[in-house]
């Protein structure tokens, strides 16, 4: 029952992603690439790129994209619904608790424990994308000639610009797309 699987996977993604932004990325990778094999790592990375270029939360973008790829529009709707259902329940509950008690030391504690965890998980997801970008789908080797030096240069230049000038990330991705695309077609 593919609808049920999609719903359950994205329910878990919605339930366990704390912290916004890229926090959902490792969870999506774990569910969609590692556990179910709905997307390859390359497709997943394309999805992250597309998500960053389009409006809306990564989790909703992923739910729609994976749902459509696997089971058409119905799949997209089921996945998206699964993704936001935990929010609906928990946010309502929290709002009610907050109105009653105001100070939520335990929830602050949970978040304090999760913040460094999320950094580690995003770092892990980033590593697998980096390996894909530098070495291609066959994965890491010690052989220097297997490294994609165009990708390494784009990465280094992008990181330098981000750290130095703090531009909108969309410009970095567009720039690396145009310059990198031209390089790959020429060489």
């Amino acid at each position: 029952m593919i609808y049920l699987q999609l719903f359950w996977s994205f329910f878990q993604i919605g339930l366990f992603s704390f912290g916004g932004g890229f926090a959902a990325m490792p969870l999506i990778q774990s569910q969609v690439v590692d556990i179910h094999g709905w997307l390859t790592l390359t497709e997943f990375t394309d999805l992250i790129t597309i998500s960053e270029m389009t409006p809306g939360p990564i989790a909703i973008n992923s739910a729609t994209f994976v749902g459509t790829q696997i089971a058409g529009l119905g799949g997209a709707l089921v996945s998206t619904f699964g993704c936001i259902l935990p929010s609906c329940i928990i946010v309502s509950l929290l709002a009610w608790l907050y109105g009653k008690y105001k100070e939520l030391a335990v929830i602050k504690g949970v978040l304090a424990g999760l913040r460094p965890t999320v950094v580690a998980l995003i770092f892990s997801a980033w590593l697998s994308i980096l390996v894909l970008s530098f070495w291609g789908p066959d994965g890491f080797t010690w052989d220097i000639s297997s490294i994609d030096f165009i990708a390494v240069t784009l990465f280094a230049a992008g990181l330098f610009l981000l750290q130095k000038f703090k531009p909108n990330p969309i410009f970095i991705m567009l720039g690396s797309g145009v310059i990198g695309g031209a390089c790959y077609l020429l060489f």
Partner: protein
Amino acid sequence: MEKNLKNYFKLFKSTFFLSAFTFGGGYVIIPLMKKKFVDELGWLEEEEMLDMAAMAQSSPGPMAVNASILAGWRLMGIFGALVAIAGTVLPPLIILSVISLFYAAFRDNVMVNAVLKGMMAGVCAVIFDVVITMGGKVIKAKKPLPILIMTGAFIVYFVLRVNIIYIILFCGTLGALMSLHDKKTGRENV
């Protein structure tokens, strides 16, 4: 606020456009929402907006959806929340459905493939930039426990390949227990 069709539509329109122009998701939605609901429409107080931001951040799931639920509920009850959710979810749902339909044909194109490959390196830089900022904050705070959690979570997930959900449950519980312990002893471990 009066619960009439006009106001529901106004709420839908506001959340729809907020969502349609929130690139990158996450924290970006909060200042945009403040501008719309506090400054422009005068529907919410600034103080309320800050509380909502805190709750949206503390809850799991996409922050934009969480914030919309809270604002919708506060303004027009449960139907307000539903209208706000619909407004927030529809733009990414529509855009990604369209992209997804063309993706297969799109991906096979040599030129598109080259551009996507270049963008992959760019997205790598963007994510690493985020990791540096977030990780830097954890290290600079110089509290041993968060640094230990960060290193431990990485090893357990990346090297030992433990299911990510167990790691999140464990670290969340650990944080909760430590905060209770800190409260008792007056120390600051987390």
